[in-house]
C-alpha cells in the first residue's frame, strides 16, 4: 500500500483529466477519430476501476465479481430504452437502484465471510448474475442485445455525437472521482480505512465494521453500475460478455497495475491495461499470452503497481 498525500492525489487527477479533455483536439489534429472512441472506453473502465479501488484499496475487500455491476448497468439501459425510457439520467438512476439492490443482498451475505471465502463468494455471485442475463432470452440471451440508439439527454439525441459522449463520460469520471475523494477523507471513509488496518481495534472503540463495509460495497456497486450505463452507450450493445469473471479479474488487474488505494491508480491502470491490450494485439492474436506473462512478472517483481514504480523512479519512498 502506498499512501498518496491527498494533495498529490488531487494534482495527479487534475493533470490526468486535463490530458483527457485535450484528447479530442489531438484526434482532430491527427485526423484519427479512433482516439476519441478508445479514450471514451478507457474512461468508462476507469470509473469501474475507481469504484473497485474504493472497496479493494480502502476497504481491503477483494471483490471478484465487480463486473456484474457493469452488466447490471448495461442491461438497465437495454431494458429501460426498449420500454421507452431513453433519458441518460433516468437510466443512471435505474442502474444505481438495481446495482444497490444486488450489492445490498449479495454484500450482506458475502461480508459475513472473510479472506478467500469472500473472494470466492463474490466470484460466485458474479457468475450468478452472468447466468441470469444469459438466460434472458427476450434480451438476446447469450448473444446479447443491440441497442436502437444511444441514450438521450434532455430529450435530444446528443450522445450520438462521439465527442459529446466523450465529454459526458469525462464529466461522469470527474464527478465520481471527486465523490470518491471526498468519501475517503470523510468520517465514513476513516472508519472504512480504519477497518482495513485493524477491524478489532475499530470494534474496540465502538464501531460495527459490517455496516460500513456493506455501505461501501453498495456505493462501489452503484458507481460501477453507472460505468455499465456508459459502456452500453459506448458499444450500443449489451451482452453477458460484459460481466464474465474474466472482466472482474481485469478490473482487479487495472486497480493493481495503477496502484491500489490511490484512486488515481484505478484511472491510470484502466488506461494502461486497455492500451496494453491494443498494443499487444497488434503483434499477435495471442496477446493474452503476453498479458498473462506480464501479470505474473508484475506480481513477482514489483510492489505497488505503476504508481509505486513511478514513485521509486522519481526517487520517492517505496
Amino acid at each position, binding site marked *: 500500500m502506498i499512501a498518496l498525500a491527498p494533495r498529490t492525489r488531487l494534482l495527479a487527477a487534475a493533470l490526468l483529466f486535463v490530458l483527457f479533455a485535450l484528447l479530442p483536439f489531438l484526434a482532430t489534429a491527427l485526423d484519427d477519430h479512433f482516439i476519441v472512441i478508445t479514450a471514451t472506453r478507457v474512461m468508462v473502465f476507469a470509473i469501474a476501476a475507481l469504484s473497485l479501488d474504493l472497496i479493494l484499496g480502502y476497504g481491503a475487500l477483494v471483490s471478484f465479481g465487480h463486473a456484474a455491476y457493469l452488466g447490471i448497468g448495461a442491461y438497465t439501459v437495454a431494458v429501460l430504452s426498449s420500454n421507452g425510457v431513453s433519458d441518460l439520467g433516468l437510466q443512471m438512476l435505474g442502474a444505481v437502484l438495481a446495482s444497490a439492490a444486488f450489492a445490498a443482498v449479495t454484500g450482506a451475505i458475502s461480508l459475513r465471510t472473510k479472506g478467500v471465502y469472500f473472494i*470466492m463468494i463474490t466470484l460466485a455471485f458474479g457468475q450468478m448474475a452472468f447466468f441470469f442475463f444469459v438466460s434472458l432470452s427476450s434480451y438476446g440471451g447469450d448473444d446479447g442485445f443491440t441497442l436502437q440508439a444511444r441514450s438521450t439527454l434532455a430529450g435530444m439525441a446528443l450522445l450520438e455525437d462521439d465527442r459529446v459522449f466523450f465529454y459526458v463520460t469525462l464529466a461522469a469520471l470527474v464527478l465520481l472521482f471527486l465523490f470518491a475523494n471526498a468519501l475517503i477523507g470523510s468520517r465514513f471513509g476513516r472508519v472504512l480505512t480504519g477497518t482495513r488496518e485493524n477491524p478489532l481495534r475499530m470494534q474496540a472503540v465502538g464501531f460495527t465494521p459490517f455496516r460500513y463495509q456493506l455501505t461501501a460495497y453498495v456505493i462501489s456497486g452503484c458507481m460501477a453500475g453507472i460505468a455499465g450505463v456508459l459502456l452500453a452507450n459506448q458499444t450500443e450493445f449489451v451482452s453477458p460478455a460484459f460481466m464474465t469473471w474474466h472482466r472482474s479479474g481485469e478490473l482487479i488487474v487495472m486497480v493493481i497495475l495503477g496502484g491500489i488505494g490511490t484512486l488515481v491508480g484505478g484511472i491510470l491502470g484502466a488506461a494502461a491495461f486497455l492500451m496494453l491490450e491494443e498494443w499487444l494485439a497488434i503483434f499477435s492474436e495471442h496477446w493474452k499470452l503476453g498479458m498473462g506473462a506480464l501479470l*505474473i512478472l508484475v506480481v513477482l517483481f514489483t510492489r505497488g503497481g505503476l504508481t509505486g514504480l513511478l514513485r521509486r523512479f522519481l526517487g520517492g519512498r517505496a
Partner: protein
Amino acid sequence: MTNLLLLQALNGLQFGILLFLVAAGLTLVFGIMDFINLAHGVLYMVGAYLLATFVGVTGSFWLGLVIALPVALAFGLVLEFLIFRRLYDRSHLDQVLATFGLIMIVNEGVKIIWGAAPLSVPMPELLSGSVPLVGPLQYPVYRIAIIAAGLLTALGLYLMIGHTRIGMLLRAGASNGAMVSALGVNIRRLFMIVFGFGAMLAGFAGAMVAPILSVDPGMGESVLILTFVVIVIGGIGSIRGAFIAAILVGLVDTLGRTFGPILLRMVLEPSAASQTGRTLAPMLIYILMAAILFFRPAGLFGRKS
C-alpha cells in the same frame, strides 16, 4: 417420471463426483497453504487435452490415460516450481493476480497448440454401451465407470487422510499450518506433494470427462467456479465437506435444470414456467451456496473463523 428422476439423479451424482475430483485437490491447497489458486481449472483442462493427444498418438484410451496422468502431474509440479512456490507467502490479492495471469497464458497456449476448435475423444470399447437399470431404463457404462472411479478415489483419500502419516500431516496442516512447520516437517515438500497430488486429481477428472464432453479451451473455467462453490459450501480444507458439497451441487444443478420447470408449471402457466425455470436453474447452486453461508459462514465442515 420416476425413471427420469432416477436417470437425472445418476447424472447429478456423476457430475458431483467429477466436481469432487477437482475440488479435493483445491480444498487441500486452500486449507493447508492458505493459497487461492484460480489456475486449478487449468489443470483439469490440460488433463483432458493430454488424454486427447495421447489417445490420438497411441490409438488406445487406456495407454493414453496411463501416459496422460504422469504428464499432468509433471505439468502441475513444473508450475509449482516456477510460479506457485513464490506465491505462498504473498497476499491473497497477489495470488489471485498471478494465477489469473497463468490462466490467460495456459488458455492461450492451449489454443496455440491444439487450436480453438473442440476436440473429441473416442469412448473406450470396454466402457461403451449401456446397462439396463430397472425396467426399460438404460444407463451408459462409461458414466457408471466415472462414478465408480470417483468413489474409489474418495475412499482412497479417506483412508489416506485418516490412516497415514502424510494424511495426519495434512489434517494438522489444514487446521494449523504453523504447527506443522513447528513439528519440523519440511513444509515446502509437503506443499509440493499436496500440490502435485491435487494437480493429478484435477487432470484425472479432465481426462475422465474427455470422452463425454467436448474438449475445448474454456472447459477449465466453468468447472473452476463450480469447484469454488463446492469448496465454500463444504468448508475450506475439508475433504469430507468437499465430497458432500460436490454431490449436493451436482444433484441440485442437474435436477434443478430438469425438474425446476416441471415443478414451476404447477404454479405458473407453461410459457412463464419454462422461462422462469431456465432463468432460475443455473442460479440454483448459487442460491444454495448463499443460503448455506448465511447460516454457516465457514461452510458445512469449515472451521469457524
